[in-house]
């Protein structure tokens, strides 16, 4: 199976959500979509791994969910808008997951954002 190349493929630290990534990430993103319902969020919290299994996440995806490893979830086909719903269950907002993915503390990440305006 071969996948087409794109002009955005070599942008560092960037995982453009194309068909290839969406194919890998479909079960994960489908699970995240289910979190639009409070009942489903509660069911996930009650038994995370059973919930992941129900949505047929791969072992790697389940491990990354367990480890709250957003960067790995992105690399495993998670779309960031959908992953935000999962992160929300863990009490993480987009600044928290930005800090996590860049290996910065939250304060360092916020300082970087502020510096972008100077």
């Amino acid at each position, binding site marked *: 199976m071969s996948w087409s190349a*794109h*002009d*955005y493929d070599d*942008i*560092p*630290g*960037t*995982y*453009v*959500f*194309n*068909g290839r990534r*969406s194919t890998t990430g*479909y079960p994960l*993103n*489908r699970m*995240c*979509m289910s*979190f*639009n*319902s*409070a009942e489903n*969020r509660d069911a996930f919290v009650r038994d995370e791994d059973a919930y992941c299994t129900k949505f047929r996440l791969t072992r790697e995806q389940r491990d990354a969910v367990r480890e709250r490893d957003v*960067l790995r979830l*992105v690399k495993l086909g998670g*779309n*960031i*808008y*959908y*992953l*935000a*719903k999962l*992160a*929300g*269950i863990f009490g993480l*907002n*987009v*600044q928290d*997951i*930005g800090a996590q*993915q*860049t*290996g910065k503390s939250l304060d360092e*990440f916020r300082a*970087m*954002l*502020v510096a*972008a*305006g100077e």
Partner: protein
Amino acid sequence: MATIVGGITTSHIPAIGNAIANGKQDDPYWRPFFEGYRPVRAWLDAVKPDVAVVVYNDHGLNFFLDQIPTFAIGAASEYANSDEGWGLDVLPPVCGNPALSWHVIESLMADEFDVTMCQQMTVDHGVMVPMSLLWPGGAWPLSIVPLEVNTVQHPLPSPARCYKLGKALGRAIRSYPDPLKVVVVGTGGMSHQLQGERAGFINKPFDLMFMTTIASDPEALARYSIGDLVEAAGSEGVELIMWLVMRGALGDRVSTIHSHYHIPVSSTGAGVLVLENAA
């Protein structure tokens, strides 16, 4: 006949919705951002549009990856907001205008834009945050036609295609027989990236260039590829293609009534513009 009274561009960052819900408009962090909307509301108070065509992208509320339309238009009499999963308050529904929606759909189809037609459509923060910024208080004083653009699942429509859609949208609105005053709102952006090791990327020089060039020379921006935009504005900054839809609906020459830019809001460069057709 309907007239286009002008165009607005605005970011639709969810954190803004939370700030409004928590009454933080005068906090030191938020004040410089919210101040930028005061002149926009003054302009809206003066022109009093009857309808807003809101160009936005769904972030996983109404559409899932099982079926993603490139362009989708609401044709409902009401658009409900709903739980997006991470704690934004659910806001009151917004009225639609089915007759205008169907006119726009028919005109766009005749113009070779094969849009998806939605008689039931929940709208997420992409619509609700701009509504709350432009018409605060939750009692929406006008109806909307939501125009959804896929900015989630690549391949996305090119900037040139979005600009042409805007031109067709402008022709559609101007050919509607009722004397409605219509404002076109392009939402999203500006530069931001939420994913990968490049998360937190904001490009102020690019954003400022985009805000002036969209008024003076939109065709220059329409020549960007999606890859160019991802590089310059970040993977989620590609939402700026929706600003080009708004711009296309206006005439070739516009006046900038108001322009304001602020960094950061959450992880994003936030820009707001009011444009009118030049006399």
